[in-house]
């Protein structure tokens, strides 16, 4: 690192805002995509928009690549550092700046942890709706970068529907203040475009987020099936019947076993081949009307038990089990490859079958826990990353799963993003022209392509744009 640049950054951030020593940089070398690693040259931890902007101006002058990182819980390598690059972490941007109860929005710094916002507004009868499984750790800034989802996005929509405004520091270090809560964008929808752009257009430092009213009644239902097939068919039936619960999730037997063997012990019956976890919310009459739709459908599909969570404690336990399922899978093998793909909801059963067959054909152990209502599959493959040959089989299975989902009219990612993980697959879905348009839009923000380079868009597509 250039000593002059380092001196300048130190002047802005002080010693506490710089992570220089190698052993202290190691925790930043990967995100949840553990097999992709790169040590960052330097880690910067600014405390606010101004520090971020001043640092980014210096990095712009020195043409240094930048990767932004929230909590590093992303699963597609979106926060994997790049060679000779600097990493900007948001871990010192943890302030909730404003809560406007009457107008139902909050302004927060990017490093605020997802669940902390909901806790902060709980007493007001409000919550922040997107709830990724990692919500106890992941940051709201990271959620914006990835347009994160979560079980309750079935009803409430992914992050993008909850972002009212942003303060963005551009790759040139300019501050773009789009923080005002707006109904419709003024000019182009830059906030909407930025959300989900995987940290490639700039760094969002402050977020204006929509808060949702806590529903008066919430019921969690558990439908137990002997077979995973039946649970999948039941979800297609629910969509067909226009049922609108707030969440429709499936856990298969292997996941149930792992959760029940872990500290979470959520109370999922081990004799079930699959569990359908449903949540209904609204006024009492709305919940009752929803329940009347789902009960006969679930029973007709062969559920051997259908019951409501008895009390809030059981409800909390069931959701903790669902959201902690990835961690619980650690009992099966040291590493977990969480595939993320979306398929048409009327084809759930055939695609879940196919993805399972793909893994089994490669001698791999797969567990399914997924957002069934959105058609968002998560085949989770257990492996040991120290076993290179096994890792190769896992990646091969991942590719085959994506190809099967695309062939069925699906797509590459429902909520984890493309990052490094699926960059090669982008050309399976998009034409050269599609990708070139994305490159051009990106270059309007970042002509040098210094923000999170080498992610999402295959390099070849970008090169072609330039020529």
């Amino acid at each position, binding site marked *: 690192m250039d000593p002059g640049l380092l001196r300048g950054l130190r002047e802005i951030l002080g010693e506490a805002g710089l992570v220089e020593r190698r052993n202290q940089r190691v925790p930043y070398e990967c995100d949840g995509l553990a097999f992709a690693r790169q040590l960052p040259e330097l880690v910067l931890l600014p405390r606010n928009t101004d520090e971020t902007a001043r640092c980014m101006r210096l990095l712009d002058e020195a043409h240094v690549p930048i990767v932004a990182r929230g909590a590093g819980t992303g699963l597609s390598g979106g926060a994997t550092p790049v060679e000779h690059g600097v990493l900007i972490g948001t871990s010192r941007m943890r302030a909730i700046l404003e809560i406007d109860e009457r107008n139902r929005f909050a302004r927060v710094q990017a490093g605020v942890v997802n669940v902390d916002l909901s806790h902060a507004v709980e007493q007001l009868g409000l919550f922040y709706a997107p709830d990724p499984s990692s919500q106890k750790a992941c940051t709201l800034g990271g959620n914006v970068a990835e*347009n994160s*989802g979560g079980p309750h996005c079935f009803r409430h929509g992914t992050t993008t529907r909850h972002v009212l405004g942003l303060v963005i520091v551009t790759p040139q270090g300019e501050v773009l203040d789009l923080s005002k809560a707006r109904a419709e964008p003024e*000019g182009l929808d830059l906030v909407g*475009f930025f959300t989900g752009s995987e940290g490639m257009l700039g760094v969002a430092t402050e977020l204006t987020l929509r808060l949702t009213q806590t529903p008066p009644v919430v019921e969690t239902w558990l439908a137990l099936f002997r077979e995973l097939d039946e649970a999948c068919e039941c979800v297609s039936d629910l969509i067909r019947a226009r049922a609108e619960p707030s969440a429709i999730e499936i856990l298969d037997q292997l996941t149930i076993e792992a959760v029940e063997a872990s500290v979470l012990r959520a109370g999922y019956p081990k004799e079930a081949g699959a569990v359908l976890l449903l949540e209904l919310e609204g006024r009492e009459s709305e919940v009752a009307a929803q329940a009347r739709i789902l009960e006969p459908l679930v029973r007709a599909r062969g559920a051997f038990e259908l019951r409501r969570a008895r009390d809030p404690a059981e409800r909390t336990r069931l959701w903790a089990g669902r959201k902690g399922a990835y961690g619980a899978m650690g009992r099966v093998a040291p590493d977990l490859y969480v595939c993320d793909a979306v398929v048409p909801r009327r084809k759930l059963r055939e695609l879940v079958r196919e993805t399972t067959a793909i893994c089994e054909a490669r001698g791999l152990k797969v567990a399914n826990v997924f957002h069934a209502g959105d058609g968002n599959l998560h085949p989770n493959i257990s492996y040991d990353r120290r076993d290179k040959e096994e890792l190769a089989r896992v990646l091969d299975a991942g590719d085959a799963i994506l190809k099967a989902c695309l062939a069925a009219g699906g797509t590459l990612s429902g909520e984890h993003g493309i990052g490094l993980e699926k960059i090669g697959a982008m050309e399976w879905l998009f034409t050269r022209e599609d990708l070139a348009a994305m490159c051009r839009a990106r270059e309007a923000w970042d002509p040098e392509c210094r923000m999170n380079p080498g992610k999402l868009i295959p390099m070849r597509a970008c090169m072609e744009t330039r020529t």
Partner: protein
Amino acid sequence: MSDPRTLLEREIGAAQVSSLGALPLAEPRDEEQLCALLRLATREHLCVLPLGFGTKLAWRASSVADFALTTRALSGIVEYEPDEGVITARAGTTLAHLRARTAAERHWLTPFVAREERTSLGGAISAGQSGLDRLRFGPLRHHVLGLRVALGDGTVVKSGGRLVKNVTGYDMHRLYTGAHGSLCVVLEASLRLFSAPRRYAWLQVPGEGREWLEAAWRGAIRPLILALGRVENGWELGVLLGGAEEVVAEELALVQHAATLEGEAALTAARTFANTHTPEGACTRLECLPTGLGELLSRARGRCLVLPGVVTAQIEGAPPAAERPQRTLDRRIKQALDPHGVLAEVG
């Protein structure tokens, strides 16, 4: 150099070239012709004003163009699997057609807007037109799942898809939605659909309906449609309740009001309300936070439609001359996606 009309007639035939005021108006019959016209414009350095039925042209400040191009002949549903809850249709398809088709399968199409028989899907998306059902479902841009578009040089590109959840690639469709045709011409769009309720009830209440807005804001009622329209001596509120039988009954009891109309008649009344209060022609959009509603209402003049939530008001009359200067980044994006400047700028 020949004049634009002659060039257009040579390219697609005189029968498909009419007039929009002083401008020649080309009506390509398919995507191939449309793209050929854009390539022609690129070659001949002509500037194109894309439109559907042209009902929202006055929403944008004056645009300089050599010819207008309508997508209204590009119509029809491309894919509708009722069991999936997604519909894909060509840009020229009217919202009225889409609503009728989806309602038959118990789906609710958002946005619910005025004059849907003269509102094309591509036009609504290009104008970023949210509906009277915005409080319940959110703005239109949240439900555009994917787009196929033609860029200024005639290249066809897509983003998003036909799935309810998707984070694959940049959401280019978020840039295109509400860009008033300045970045691309929309060819085909996929929209997310919602469940249609079993029962509808329409109420039209004189006054500002503060207690109704309050009830809706705190979730005591969840109307499909909630909008204020200006009348001679103030305001009237239009409310379309919808849901299961007992849900609507409960809401009616809560607001202590008998429904004036039910079923299809309720939907017809909602359409009439939308048509009555949505300005035609020049229109300015105002916004405020929910707590600023009173002040916004006091400023409104003429024909006016107000949608609660983060409030938007469509008010009759041209936008003020002192327009917001276009952001540098907007300009850079325009330059990147339409480097030859084929598509007319927004004001």
